[in-house]
């Protein structure tokens, strides 16, 4: 039984910006394809939660004891973002939760730290990216938003880390002073000159540490925000062309810190047991990781299919177009007239702590006497009035059906209209909430929905996170819920 990656999760947001839309608006060269776009109610923390849920979804993993969360674009500084991810994933209070944030390279650092932790206890690594640039620039056009997560387990791994090499070099290729909305980049040729030899050396060293040669590599994933250097490295390592993993940047964009994990997860969904996978990332140096898949891979692949988890390829091919003006608005690049409604107030910190299980874990309260499910949890049962006989019950992963809905043109929103839905959950319980990631015209009574963790708004420098519903994509007839309780 090997230690290493136990499972993986990838989350690409619902929205896609068509690159031609940028060209049409700005009269500039357009490029082709799409990039992923985090919605107005998403940030790197919520993206990370969605990826984490997918990594934990098929089950079979022992409780996570350690969590590393990494993003170049943290929602908070000083305050740990990993604790939010931990709470929204419903992980035990006895979990160490740590951020590695601020730079692209911190993503691979989180993965390596989790590999080390995973030798001893189940560990989760989550890497999230929300990346753009100034309007009309390459970063805006070529970047993407998304998140990946891996569980690292002491045994039953699907892929072991069998070799590794790293190199660090201090040079300015890409940088950003905190507070800036876009990064700076030195002349492209300079970065390429710095990266390419480093990457080649690290690749060679990593293969050596694994005791293999380039012809033994079954899948190669090369990532980095310096696209030109990545291209140059990828085709010059002596790895067979059939082993070069597709980067899917045409549909998704470059996920920056999350790109390595994205490519690795994509490979794990197609790989066979006993194969060698190399990931090589170019960021302020280079990091090469050599993985070997195990016999456990086939079973995990099957469980994920049974659980109905969309594959990386399926996610890359799906999505819904977002107008360029909405994208610019969501990213704060286009300052729009706010709705003529009072801005929301910040929530209260002590109240949020008292209600942590509800606010972050989406835990309902089930009456132990009559079984009635309460959202939010309450002390007195609506049905039988019994006091303090409630058991928390996480409904974050329970689906439901739209009992009724309303399109609200008046509510304060970055993306009007707000769609309100009344959700009746499978197995009982009703809750009224917002519906996100949907086309308002397609909302119907009877539609199937699932819950998603979102940032509602930010007030007084405080992010207000909670859960919304989103369409599952299932047809109402295909999944008839059974109502109980």
């Amino acid at each position, binding site marked *: 039984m090997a230690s290493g990656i136990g499972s993986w999760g990838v989350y690409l947001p619902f929205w896609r910006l068509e690159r031609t839309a940028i060209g049409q608006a700005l009269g500039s060269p357009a490029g082709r394809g799409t990039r992923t776009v985090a919605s107005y109610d998403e940030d790197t923390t919520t993206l990370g939660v969605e990826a984490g849920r997918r990594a934990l979804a098929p089950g079979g993993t022992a409780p996570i004891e350690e969590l590393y969360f990494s993003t170049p674009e943290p929602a908070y500084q000083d305050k740990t973002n990993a604790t939010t991810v931990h709470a929204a994933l419903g992980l035990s209070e006895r979990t160490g939760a740590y951020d590695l944030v601020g730079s692209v390279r911190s993503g691979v650092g989180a993965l390596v730290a989790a590999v080390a932790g995973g030798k001893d206890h189940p560990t989760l690594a989550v890497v999230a990216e929300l990346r753009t640039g100034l309007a009309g620039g390459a970063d805006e056009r070529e970047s993407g938003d998304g998140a990946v997560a891996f569980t690292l387990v002491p045994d039953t791994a699907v892929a072991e880390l069998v070799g590794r090499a790293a190199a660090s070099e201090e040079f300015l290729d890409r940088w950003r002073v905190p507070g800036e909305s876009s990064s700076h980049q030195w002349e492209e040729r300079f970065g390429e000159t710095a990266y390419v030899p480093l990457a080649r050396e690290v690749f060679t060293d990593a293969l050596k540490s694994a005791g293999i040669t380039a012809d033994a590599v079954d899948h190669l994933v090369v990532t980095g925000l310096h696209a030109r250097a990545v291209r140059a490295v990828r085709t010059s390592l002596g790895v067979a062309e059939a082993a070069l993993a597709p980067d899917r940047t045409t549909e998704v964009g470059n996920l920056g810190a999350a790109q390595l994990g994205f490519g690795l997860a994509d490979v794990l969904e197609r790989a066979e047991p006993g194969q060698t996978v190399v990931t090589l990332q170019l960021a302020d140096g280079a990091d090469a990781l050599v993985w070997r898949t195990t016999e456990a891979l086939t079973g995990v692949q099957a469980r994920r299919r049974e659980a109905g988890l969309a594959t990386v390829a399926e996610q890359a091919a799906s999505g819904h177009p977002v107008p360029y003006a909405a994208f610019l608005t969501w990213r704060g690049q286009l300052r729009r007239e706010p709705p003529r409604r009072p801005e929301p*107030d910040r929530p209260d910190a002590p109240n949020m702590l008292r*209600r942590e299980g509800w606010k972050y874990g989406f835990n309902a309260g089930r009456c132990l006497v009559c079984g009635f499910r309460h959202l939010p949890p309450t002390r007195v049962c609506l049905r039988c009035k019994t006091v303090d006989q409630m058991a928390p019950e996480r409904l974050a992963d329970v689906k439901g059906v739209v009992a009724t809905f309303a399109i609200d*043109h008046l509510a304060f929103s970055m993306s009007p209209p707000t769609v309100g839905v*009344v959700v009746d959950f499978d197995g009982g319980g*009703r809750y*009224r909430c917002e519906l996100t990631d949907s086309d308002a015209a397609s909302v119907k009574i009877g539609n199937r929905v699932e819950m998603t963790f979102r940032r509602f708004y930010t007030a007084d420098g405080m992010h207000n996170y909670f859960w919304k519903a989103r369409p599952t994509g299932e047809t109402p007839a295909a999944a008839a819920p059974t109502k109980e309780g």
Partner: protein
Amino acid sequence: MASNGIRDRVAIVGMGCTPFGERWDKGTDDLLTDAAVDAIADAGVKMDEIDAFWLGTMGSGNSGLTLSRPLKLDYRPVSRLENFCATGSEAFRNACYAVASGAYDLAMAIGVEKLKDSGYSGLTGIHLVGDGTGGSLTAPATFSFLVPAYAEKYGVGTDEMKEVLTRIAWKNHYNGARNPRAQFRKEVPMETISKSPRVAGELGVFDCSGVSDGSAAAIVCRVEDAHRYTDAPLYVKGLSFVAGPAAGPIDPEYDYTTFEEVVRSATDAYHQAGITDPRSQLAMAEVHDCFTPTELVLMEDLGFADRGTAWKEVLAGTFELGGELPVNPDGGLKSFGHPIGASGLRMLFECWLQLRKKAPPERQIKTVTEGGRTLGLTHNLGGGPGECVSFVSVVGSEPSA
């Protein structure tokens, strides 16, 4: 529910009601002063004869000082209370109980709201954010849940439903056009109503009540003292108020076609007042038409129409000014807007005029002048479908035999 009621033990002997509207010229102090001064003039009393005051306001001032300061009251008890949209009615209910108990001889219930100083259209409410998990939906959105639910349950087509809701708004504007105190004093063509821009769900701008400033006041005493002040008092027949367990938003069995709180409070008030058939016994009703589907559902919850039939009654004109049971003859929230603390007392003011045959001829209802009916109803609900407070009063121009 056990409630004994105070039928025919308390009487209204004077009322005042300001014009409602965008009162850029008047502040909360001015509105309170206007309503209070009109009410004491109507009752023929001086301010210092009033023993105690109940002030209803949702957010236009805290504490009794909101009233005692502008009126320069001489060290009198002033209770300031709030109960959502039933706030004004709650001031009235509590003042009635105070005089019924014998604790005071003469009491004033007064309600006020100054909404237009907020700078926003629509109600903004008071923010109690808490853990930040509360919904962001506006009131029109939550009330719009009623429309598809009612239509589906009773097989009413989308266009037919639109016609029903339009007819309710049209009726209330027709009545408001005959009321000099109303915010909107023009009839509105049905086409304008049905084609108004959407606010939420199926609701257009004309399906929503307006936003206005206003104040209204009533002076109450025990029945045996009433004729000291007026030859034509109104007698309090029943007062009921309930707050529900807010079950609707959490109970999958709730279907958004009724307000259980209204059913309960109406049943209680009818019991207190000895009413067995409200549709034939009441001369009029002032109901909480915050949104047009609310009024539709209320017709059934208040027992004016059988379940599933109110939409037909609306189309038949049953609740119009010359109909079998006039509803909102003063124009309702639709024509008056909804200054929260004032609305309940504004409704009562219409009973005060109509039941005593003092309404202007162009809107005096015939159920009183020709039908000989003597009872009127006022109703408020606050909150939303499935989670509200509800108030029902019955008042009459004749003491019981």
